[in-house]
């Protein structure tokens, strides 16, 4: 009796589990979105969540190439005028049509978000004026030639003007929009009735710190996603995240730690890895200001890094393959430039420097440092994958060619504030190119500080090369994709040949999931449930 009962219960349980499993997907995410509001915080986890509910004019594929989304096509009418054709028949999840008015409303609302830690004006700053000759055409004018406009249209999500009671006519003006009404507060979006977008999913339930559930939007214009409901559970510590996957509490997790790969595979789960747009690099102090003493450098009274031969020796001393294999467990790709192939502006023929300690020693001797010198390498210890261990390996390799290196590692917040005060003559850090274009990496890392607005912001080695500056600036004004890519490649090759910065490796982002589903890795590291397919 009792046996048949429990058998029946087991059968029923198996039935419900199988039924649910076919429709439901549970994902253990590494960090929780700080808000459902798509305009609140420009940060990875929020942007990934946003894509389920709110779409943008332009989409980005797994290699961050712009692809049609709410706009079916776009072209330039002249150097400063862009025409976007809107997708007809798109409806919001509240049944209202998607129109130009919603786009304008979204652009107008972005600067009005209260307490935003980092807002999306960075993506709308190029817009000078918006007009619309007919219902499916959108004309955007920029002040100067602005090749990144389509990419930037993929950065922010479009919200429904009707959901928040905007006027019948919303007008964009650089100085201030009219007709916006009372813009929504970020917390309003926690209410499923107000979180209205055109995406494949709509918000069902949101409990901060516990879970966020989305369900299929039946009014969605595109192909129906496989999963009826998707649950995102934030599990910030790696250990418990892996444990949740192994125990079957979730079906898929982000960022399983490298050292647990064997265990996860052994337990019958799949791991997929994809290149990210994040480069791990070492920047060297190349400041030429008078009376500048390179901090941490001993054994010489000059700044050794002003000599290109020393920088080249630095790069040749590093065995990138060994770092990738031994420290990163094979889960990284050695880098010879700032963005991995096939991203826009990367050069397929730029290979990473071969490990050549003898050549490096020779270069040091030629440069006048036969006995090397002492160096302190700064590094964060909790920001990038195995950052402190990579720094130690670099120190080990440099010490072998005579640059006696010690590692000063610390928690990320301390590290970045000290780095920004130029307290390290050499530091290890990383950079993710969020536009997926070389222009972003070059402008941030190797162009001269203050050469132009937005240039050299993260160039804390204070490297300066006129040719790189000019080429990058020119590329950012060139609309034609082919010509722009050629310019970016030239600039990138110039910076690499000059050893202005020492690239180490590209991080690889892994996902682990149960058998029977699959996912295509994305360069932007987003986990998008509607791209998770069942085999």
């Amino acid at each position: 009796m009792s046996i048949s009962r429990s058998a029946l219960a087991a059968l029923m349980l198996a039935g419900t589990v199988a039924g649910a499993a076919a429709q439901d997907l549970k994902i253990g995410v590494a960090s929780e979105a700080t808000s459902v509001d798509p305009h609140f915080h420009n940060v990875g986890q929020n942007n990934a969540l946003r894509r389920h509910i709110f779409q943008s004019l332009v989409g980005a594929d797994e290699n961050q190439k712009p692809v049609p989304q709410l706009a079916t096509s776009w072209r330039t009418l002249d150097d400063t005028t862009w025409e976007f054709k809107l997708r007809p028949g798109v409806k919001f999840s509240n049944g209202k049509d998607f129109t130009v008015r919603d786009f304008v409303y979204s652009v107008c609302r972005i600067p009005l978000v209260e307490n935003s830690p980092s807002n999306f004006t960075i993506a709308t700053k190029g817009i000078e004026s918006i007009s619309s000759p007919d219902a499916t055409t959108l004309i955007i004018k920029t002040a100067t030639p602005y090749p990144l406009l389509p990419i930037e249209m993929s950065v922010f999500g479009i919200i429904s003007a009707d959901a928040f009671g905007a006027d019948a006519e919303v007008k964009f003006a650089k100085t201030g929009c009219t007709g916006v009404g009372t813009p929504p507060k970020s917390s309003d979006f926690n209410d499923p009735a107000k979180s209205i977008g055109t995406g494949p999913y709509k918000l069902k339930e949101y409990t901060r710190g516990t879970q966020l559930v989305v369900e299929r939007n039946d009014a969605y214009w595109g192909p129906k996603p496989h999963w009826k409901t998707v649950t995102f559970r934030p599990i910030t510590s790696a250990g418990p995240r892996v444990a949740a996957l192994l125990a079957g509490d979730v079906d898929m997790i982000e960022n399983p730690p490298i050292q647990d790969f064997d265990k996860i595979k052994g337990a019958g789960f799949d791991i997929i890895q994809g290149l990210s747009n994040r480069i791990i690099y070492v920047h060297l102090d190349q400041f030429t200001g008078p009376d500048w003493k390179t901090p941490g450098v001993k054994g010489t009274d000059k700044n050794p890094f002003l000599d290109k031969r020393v920088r080249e020796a630095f790069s040749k001393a590093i065995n990138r393959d060994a770092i990738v294999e031994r420290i990163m467990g094979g889960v990284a790709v050695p880098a010879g430039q700032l963005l991995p192939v096939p991203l826009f502006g990367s050069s397929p023929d730029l290979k990473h420097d071969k490990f050549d300690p003898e050549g490096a020693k020779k270069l040091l001797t030629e440069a006048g440092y036969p006995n090397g010198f002492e160096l302190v390498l700064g590094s964060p210890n909790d920001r990038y994958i195995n950052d402190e261990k990579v720094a130690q390996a670099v120190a080990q390799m440099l010490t072998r060619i005579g640059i006696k290196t010690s590692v000063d590692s610390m928690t990320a917040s301390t590290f970045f504030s000290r780095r920004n005060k130029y307290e390290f003559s050499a530091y290890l850090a990383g950079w993710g190119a969020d536009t997926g274009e070389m222009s972003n990496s070059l402008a941030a890392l190797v162009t001269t500080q203050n050469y132009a607005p937005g240039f050299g912001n993260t160039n804390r080695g204070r490297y300066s090369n006129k040719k790189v500056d000019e080429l990058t600036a020119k590329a950012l004004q060139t609309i034609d994709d082919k010509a722009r890519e050629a310019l970016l490649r030239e600039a990138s090759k110039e910076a690499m040949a000059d050893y202005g910065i020492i690239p180490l490796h590209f991080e690889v982002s892994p996902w682990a999931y149960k058998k029977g589903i699959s996912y295509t890795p994305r360069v932007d590291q987003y986990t998008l449930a509607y791209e998770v397919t069942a085999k």
Partner: protein
Amino acid sequence: MTALPEPAIRTPAAVDKGESLLRRRFSEFFESTGAAFGLALLILLLGAAIFAPWIAPQNPYDLAQLDIMDGRLAPGAKGLDGRTFHLGTDEQGRDMLSAILYGLRISLFVGVVSTVAACSIGAAVGVLAAYKGGRVENLVMRAVDLQLSFPAILIALVLLAVFGRGIDKVIIALVVVQWAYYARTVRGSALVERGRDYIEAARCLALPKSRIVFRHLLPNCLPPLIVVATVQVAHAIALEATLSFLGVGVPVTEPSLGMLIKNGYDYLMSGKYWISTYPGIALVIAIVAINIVGDRLRDVLNPRLSK
């Protein structure tokens, strides 16, 4: 007057049976085989730590001697240059045996130096408080209370976050969190001793105050202090290991036992047990040996338990 010989006032510790007292305590100590074993172990570890540069197969702090291609080798595996790593290597290619020997060196050094420093400061402050009494005593003891009301690890973490990394900084942090224990202990016994006749006699002879405090009062407060200090060495070592494990403390290129354990912790779940386990065993043995010796010392030096 000036010719008055100082040892004329014999203190109780010395009055008893002169030099033979020490010998008696010594033989009492060895009545426990456990304690004898603990002491032997401790001497062995101290020897290993002191002579580490001569007995370790590798200098794990010299980056030029490491090769990451030797990283994470299992115990007994051969490295690129043909040498055998008996306890395996960590992910930087450090020989675990050498790293443990050097790590013990750091741990014991930090433990002993911070204890001696904290003990000296604490004892001086404590005995002064007891002798002076009144306002000074109040002030000092409230400071001690305040200090002891915070968890030691919390204060040490804050201090190291401010100072940065380095063995010297770890020692300073440990002294800051530990002096209060000694101050309280010494004050307790000094209060008792202060009322004794020999102190009265010393006062009558108009000896300088500093002389009374440090030559008469302090030596008689030593037995409890020795016991506390032995146990606190073990505490200091554990605290240093904890701080290193948490990523503050010693520099990453010169790992102590705590940092070695932390380095291996990442690999513990994937079968590479040796990076954490062996330093962990070394740490446990060191702490247990010190505690056994400390416990026995307490028994031997406690007048109530003496035969």
